[in-house]
């Protein structure tokens, strides 16, 4: 009996329940923590149940399966990526607020146990990077990039769905760790030998390893997919130097994914070998050493932070030129700078471990290489400023994020440069100064980028604009909240407060941690305002519809199709004659929506269950490995292998949409558009804006 249970459950037992500590050792602190942890676990279960309930109630299972889960459509996959990102974000944000509250009362202790705090910063960092930022940017690129280059889908649509599945599996694994605890306490960087089984025998680190591994596999596949698509599927005439800037950054991001992910795969794989098969890569004894891990991790980690920021740069480039009603300043320089950043990002990883003891020459050389990145980044910043210069700047929500970004990002860059000087880094490494630096890049950079991008492209994806006033309030709260939450951390850092501290003992820190907590609460408020914005927008969707598809007087091809776009994106693949292809089309004689001469049958990829299958088996393999349930690993492994082989035998891989249908749909839309009144930019935020822009020059000038 017992034997069977062991075989079945591996090392999973009662102690995995989040409230177990409080039962074994009911101190006040343990009870408080158990309540918090169980509450979180209960939320996950509740959320799952509600989702299942709603689906069953509304009889949407079949719809979910055939319209979404098995769909190879890049637009739907993009949206699903973003949904994952938002769900995970909700958790990571709550964790962030808990950490700030803990440190606000952390003088001498606080209310969280050290163990719990360790799990908080680890899951927060891991989720934010791998399960919030990566899916978010992957989702946006997925949605927008094919539309921008004038194609109907990615090169490998089913692989795209598998990427989604792997990310979903990793995210699910992290969520399950709330119910069957604990997660790792080793930070998002997971340094051994702390994460070796000698110091951390439990399941926590294994959760982390497999969640991260699933995410890296997903990102590698995504990178390949994006790169091949941009190389091979551009519309006729879309030469390299006509690509919209966002697509350029997507390409560089893809390249960074392809070459930046392997070091992490190696690092986590070797760590897993150490933990599971008693290898000795990073252990202290028998010839191992953990410096190898540190080196490998950051050989990934640094390119990773540029994976996170480059798409945001691309989004801001589109926003600046669109809302300044002006051509992008220095297109060529922006492209070169993007590529320079991508290549340079492979040459600086050592700056994350200046204090490990290598020679001063090595430190200095990597420090200087790091500073070099400041040059192309600076060029970008100034190019954006010059794009606004002599423009007509409209303060739509995306633009507020963009302006907030440019100022705050410059400050974060400055602190990055400070960290890049090794002799100064010896003082502030691993302090809250570092934490302030990277949040200063990640929130105004990445997160504002994603938020700006969402406000920008939302009408394209869903057919109606997001509400403006609540959006503005949210954006302002974001900017203020960010400054209040993170600028104090710079001060705490130079005062020597270590990162990852559950408690501190310097009264001098207290005012700053209190201020930061207030900031975090304002951010929470901003988050609330975002939800209100979303709700109000959905409520008023009928007044804010933009069926003609071009609410902002856009410049690139995605604005030339209806909102939301048809599943085949373009009834006829457009021909491109210049940069800012759609703007050119609008300025030229043939008008914004020329009637195509002829329609042809369109071949689209057919649905495939590979994505969900890989998601399920990936999750089960990872779960089994985490808890030592070997039968589960073997079973799920065999199923996924069979699925892969079987997929090779499938021949029904495409589906044809007859020219007739395409014609009917497109002509109906053109008909509808012809009845819409074009608006000038003054009316941009009014219900009059139905997505048809007045001829550019008239419309932009008042």
């Amino acid at each position: 009996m017992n034997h069977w249970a062991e075989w079945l459950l591996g090392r999973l037992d009662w102690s995995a329940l989040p409230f177990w500590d409080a039962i074994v050792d009911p101190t006040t602190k343990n009870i408080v923590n158990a309540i918090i942890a169980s509450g979180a676990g209960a939320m996950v279960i509740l959320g799952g149940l509600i989702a299942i309930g709603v689906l069953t109630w509304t009889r949407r299972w079949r719809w979910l399966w055939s319209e979404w889960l098995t769909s190879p459509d890049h637009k739907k996959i993009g949206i699903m990526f973003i949904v994952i990102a938002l769900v995970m974000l909700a958790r990571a944000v709550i964790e962030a607020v808990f950490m700030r509250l803990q440190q606000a009362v952390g003088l001498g202790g606080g209310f969280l146990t050290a163990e719990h705090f360790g799990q908080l910063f680890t899951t927060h960092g891991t989720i934010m990077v791998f399960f919030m930022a990566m899916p978010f940017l992957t989702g946006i690129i997925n949605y927008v990039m094919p539309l921008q280059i004038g194609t109907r889908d990615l090169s490998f649509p089913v692989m795209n769905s598998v990427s989604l599945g792997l990310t979903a599996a990793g995210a699910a694994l992290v969520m399950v760790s709330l119910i069957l605890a604990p997660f790792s306490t080793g930070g998002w960087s997971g340094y051994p030998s702390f994460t070796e089984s000698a110091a951390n025998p439990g399941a926590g680190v294994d959760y982390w390893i497999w969640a991260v591994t699933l995410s890296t596999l997903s990102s590698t596949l995504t990178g390949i997919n994006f790169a091949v698509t941009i190389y091979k599927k551009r519309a006729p005439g879309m030469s390299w130097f006509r690509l919209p800037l966002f697509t350029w950054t997507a390409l560089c991001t893809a390249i960074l994914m392809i070459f930046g992910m392997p070091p992490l795969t190696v690092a986590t794989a070797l760590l897993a070998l150490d933990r599971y098969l008693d290898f000795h890569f990073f252990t202290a004894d028998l010839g191992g050493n953990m410096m190898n891990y540190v080196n490998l991790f950051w050989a990934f980690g640094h390119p990773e932070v540029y994976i996170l920021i480059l798409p945001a740069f691309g989004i801001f480039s589109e926003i600046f030129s669109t809302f300044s009603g002006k051509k992008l300043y220095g297109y060529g320089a922006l492209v070169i700078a993007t590529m320079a950043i991508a290549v340079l990002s492979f040459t600086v990883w050592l700056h994350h471990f200046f204090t490990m003891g290598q020679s001063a020459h090595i430190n200095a050389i990597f420090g200087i290489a790091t500073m070099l990145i400041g040059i192309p980044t600076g060029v970008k910043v100034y190019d954006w400023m010059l794009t606004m210069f002599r423009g007509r700047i409209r303060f739509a929500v995306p633009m507020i994020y963009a302006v907030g970004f440019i100022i705050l990002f410059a400050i974060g860059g400055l602190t990055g440069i400070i960290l890049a000087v090794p002799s100064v880094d010896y003082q502030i490494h691993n302090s809250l100064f570092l934490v302030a630096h990277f949040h200063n890049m990640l929130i105004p950079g990445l997160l504002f980028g994603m938020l700006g991008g969402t406000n920008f492209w939302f009408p394209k994806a869903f057919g109606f604009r997001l509400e403006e006033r609540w959006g503005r309030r949210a954006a302002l709260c974001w900017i203020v909240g960010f400054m209040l939450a993170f600028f104090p951390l710079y001060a705490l850092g130079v005062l020597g407060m270590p990162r990852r501290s559950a408690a501190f003992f310097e009264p001098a820190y207290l005012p700053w941690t209190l201020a930061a907590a207030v900031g975090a609460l304002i951010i929470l408020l901003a988050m609330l305002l975002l939800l209100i914005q979303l709700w109000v927008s959905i409520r008023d969707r009928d007044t804010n519809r933009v069926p003609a598809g071009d609410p902002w007087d856009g410049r690139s091809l995605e604005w030339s199709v209806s909102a939301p776009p048809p599943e085949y994106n373009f009834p006829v693949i457009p021909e491109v004659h210049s940069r800012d292809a759609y703007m050119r089309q609008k300025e030229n004689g043939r008008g914004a929506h020329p009637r195509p001469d002829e329609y042809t049958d369109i071949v689209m990829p057919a649905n495939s269950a590979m994505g969900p299958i890989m998601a399920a088996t990936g999750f089960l393999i990872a779960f089994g490995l985490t808890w030592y349930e070997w039968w589960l690993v073997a079973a799920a492994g065999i199923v996924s292998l069979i699925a892969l082989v079987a997929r090779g035998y499938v021949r029904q891989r495409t589906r044809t949409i007859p020219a007739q249908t395409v014609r009917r749909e497109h002509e109906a839309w053109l008909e509808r558009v012809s009845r819409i009144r074009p608006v000038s930019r003054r009316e941009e935020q009014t219900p009059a804006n139905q997505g048809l822009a007045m001829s550019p020059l008239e419309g932009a000038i008042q």
Partner: protein
Amino acid sequence: MSHPPVTAQTACRYRAFLAGLLSILLTGCSQTPISFLDPQGPVATAQRHQFGLIIALTSIVVLPVLILTPWIVIRYRYGAQSAYRPRWGFSKLADIAIWGIPFLVVVVLATVAWRSTLALDPYRPIQGDQKTEPLRVQVVGFDWKWLFIYPDQGIATVNELVVPAHRPLALELTSASVMQGFFIPALGSQIDVMNRMVTQLHLEADHTGEFPGKNMQYNGKGFSHQRFVTRVVDEQTFHNFVAHTGEGGMTLDARMFDRLMAQNTGKTLAQSLARADVGSNNDGDGKGRGDDAGRLRFGHLPDDLFNDIVGHVSPDWASIPVASTGKANDASSSQEARP
């Protein structure tokens, strides 16, 4: 010389002002020097200087962004009557400036970084006034406390580093556990300590006083409690400290070593010693700097303990002088001098 070369005079004045302002702002309410903004040694002083200098230099290219962006945004807002050039997308002059100026700034920054990094290499000995030999201390990071071995004095302490002012310090460091980061902000650089490896750190203190030290690299539950006090004293007090510890300190024998290897903070270790009636020689006031620092002092320890820890070899317990083994562990701390 331990100060890195000073560059422009103006930048220097600027950073003095800036650093002064920052230190008042940041450390105003704390008497103990907890940060390099209130430096107590040449390394930290140089770092404060460099900190200001880097900010000043980088501001040359960052301030324009902070100032010009709001100006552009207001001036060219929709509805203002300023010039509108929708097709303007390139200017040679502007491009030269936005590539050139940052490039020049980076060249200067790189020079500064190169020189300061070589000057402040933690492995590089500090030349004090030539007469004094550096004081050698061997540091071992345990979960979650620090052991300081004075190889030339034959004594050791836990969570308390006592050093004379104006004498260079040569630290050799290792970890008996996972990776940790050894750091005394007021004196200078931090350095990682790792199992089976020996890193080096050179510091010097200019003033007497008590400065907090800490671990910067997360290593589990006790992480934020892994703190120690650096007591910088005058030469005479240091001699007394050495003498008293040598006589009255406890013995670091195999049992004690096991206690050190176990996962506990200095405080719980000291408490458990008191409970076990081994006797701790914690200072009378117990609370060093507002909390139980968990300090211990050892007068007797095996030879070459540090290298045995590094090499994962069992220490040579037999080398501890036999006479003192028995009695030392219950010797109370009362006789110990507190400078």
